[in-house]
């Protein structure tokens, strides 16, 4: 069991003919993901990575039975690419593209919400259900099937932590990046809700970072709903100074808000197991027995 994607997922790749799009399509196929078609405006009728390419998502849907999409198109076209996928009824829509204007993301996320579609990203490494399906750019081999659901605002740090969990014998159900931008389709509360209802997940790991209040909101949600599963977290950016954007558009401490220490404090107060360094996560999970077991 897992959330959002699995063996049933049949995806199209929007922007398949670009460098990133074709490179990662190959890796996703290698992982066993069912990619059924690509979409690139003006390239309909050609093939890429052995897949048929269509001019529009609607045209792809006439010939395939896709139910999800992963988007690699350049930032100026990402909002419409997302709308196009949503109009075609695809979900989730994974948006790898980074540097999308915040206004565009804001409108697209509202568009998805009103139409019942799930957006993952933008500026996300994607989502992987270990051993089943990967819609993203993460290295597949660091993940192995298990019962830890993982949500992260980061990319490589997620691989780092997943690799260390895997190394320590702790497998994962689904791992997903919510995205490094200020506006993302899913936040940590959404991730917690998804894993709560997944029988294949008994523990949730959240990998947060400075900026915004997604981690504080998650802490409040866990406390207020007496969240029924074990939650552990690591927050990156304790050494980051205020006012500086640490790579991600979303990773910036403004005023006194969004510091790592405040986030760690909130999470601890909600009985979340908070790791001081990434490698501590495995130790915390192995020491503690899941309340469900």
């Amino acid at each position: 069991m897992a959330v959002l994607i699995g063996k049933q997922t049949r995806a199209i790749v929007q922007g398949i003919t670009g460098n990133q799009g074709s490179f990662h399509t190959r890796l996703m196929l290698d992982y066993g993901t069912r990619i059924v078609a690509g979409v690139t405006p003006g390239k309909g009728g050609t093939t890429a990575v052995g897949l048929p390419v269509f001019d529009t998502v609607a045209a792809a849907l006439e010939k395939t039975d896709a139910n999800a999409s992963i988007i690699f198109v350049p930032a100026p076209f990402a909002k419409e690419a997302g709308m196009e996928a949503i109009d075609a009824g695809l979900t989730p829509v994974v948006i790898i593209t980074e540097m999308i204007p915040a206004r565009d993301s804001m409108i697209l996320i509202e568009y998805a919400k009103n139409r019942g579609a799930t957006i993952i990203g933008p500026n996300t490494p994607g989502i992987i259900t270990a051993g089943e399906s990967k819609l993203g750019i993460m290295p597949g081999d660091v993940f192995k099937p298990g019962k830890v659901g993982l949500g992260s605002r980061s990319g490589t740090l997620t691989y780092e932590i997943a690799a260390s969990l895997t190394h320590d014998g702790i497998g994962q159900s689904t791992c997903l990046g919510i995205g490094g931008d200020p506006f993302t389709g899913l936040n940590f509360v959404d991730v917690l809700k998804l894993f709560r209802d997944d029988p294949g997940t008994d523990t949730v790991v959240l990998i947060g970072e400075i900026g915004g209040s997604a981690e504080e909101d998650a802490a409040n949600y866990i406390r207020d709903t007496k969240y029924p599963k074990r939650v552990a977290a690591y927050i990156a950016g304790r050494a980051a100074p205020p006012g500086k954007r640490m790579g991600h558009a979303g990773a910036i401490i403004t005023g006194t808000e969004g510091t790592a220490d405040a986030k760690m404090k909130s999470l601890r107060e909600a009985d979340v197991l908070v790791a001081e360094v990434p490698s501590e996560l495995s130790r915390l999970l192995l020491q503690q027995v899941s309340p469900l077991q």
Partner: protein
Amino acid sequence: MKLFEYEAKSIAQNLGINTPRGAVASTSEEARDIHKRIGGEAVIKAQVLVAGRGKAGGIKFASKPDETRDRATEILNMTIKGERVKKVLVEQKAAAKKELFASIVLDRANRCQTVLASDQGGVDIEEVARQAPEKVLRHRLDPVFGMRSYDARLIALKLGYQGAQQGTFTDFLSNLYRLSVIYDAELVESNPVIEMQDGRFLAADLRVIVDDNSLFRHPEFQERSKEISSEVTALESKARDNGLAFVELDGDIGIIGNGAGLVMATLDLVKQYGGKPANFCDVGGGANAEHVATALQIIQGADKVKAVFVNILAGITRCDEVAKGIVDVKKVMGLKKPLVIRMVGTNQEEGRKILQSAGLTAMDKMDEAARLVVSKVAA
């Protein structure tokens, strides 16, 4: 991209937002002439992008043009939080009946724009929000339909405005919102908004931050965004020109990694073990030998750096490319500072062989590598 106050006000005026009479000056003589032209009491304001210019003495008053010239001379010789003052804004001091606060921000938690407004303007609004949260109104805007006149009017009403004055404030706020849309602003903030004796509202100060990701549709800012902003250090500017996400910090351990989250975690680890990071440097996903080499050259070239920590978790990035970049630097200019490499993931073996052939080794665990690099500096 932060706009200078005078840039923000120029845009605002074109949208029908009132601002005090005045103009920007690069020399004290220009400042004097502006005061002559506008008359009355003048305020002379340092044009810098850093916050806190008031406390730093970057805002002065003058009642005569010659005084304005002298104050402008003083301000134009200042450096505020590391930023050289190059221009001053000379404006007529407005007679305020009341000072308000109004701001339109990106609201991450609610995925919309939110208006913040208060009748306690001209002061530190975060302080007001802490001490009397009920004094700061928050009103969310629909993500698609934005600010309708009734949104603005409800805020005007809650600030206590009635009748015609309510309409005047509604228009003022609607224009600030229009500015935020037209210029893709992350932030539009006026503090204080001055309510004049005649009932008009004036943006006495105005901060606008344009979303960097939207610059492709704002050709008017493209030249401006390329100028080295005073906020960016020379090292940062050099690194960013080379396509690296780079932030300069106070410490002495240079950090290179791939992925923003991993680099942040690397800084945290170094600090955890008692070291002080000299920078944040993300070479990005899929970095090649050249990226890595450039990053290493720039960082080991900085005087303050006493040791360098390269932390790579290769996924899309390949260890052999990373190793090649490091070895290239060693060959061409030599390794000038102690170097600790942690490198795992895709093509790990190939990468390590390349390192070994140049007499270098890589570690497995980032914890251990972090401890080691800290010990090199402490030693």
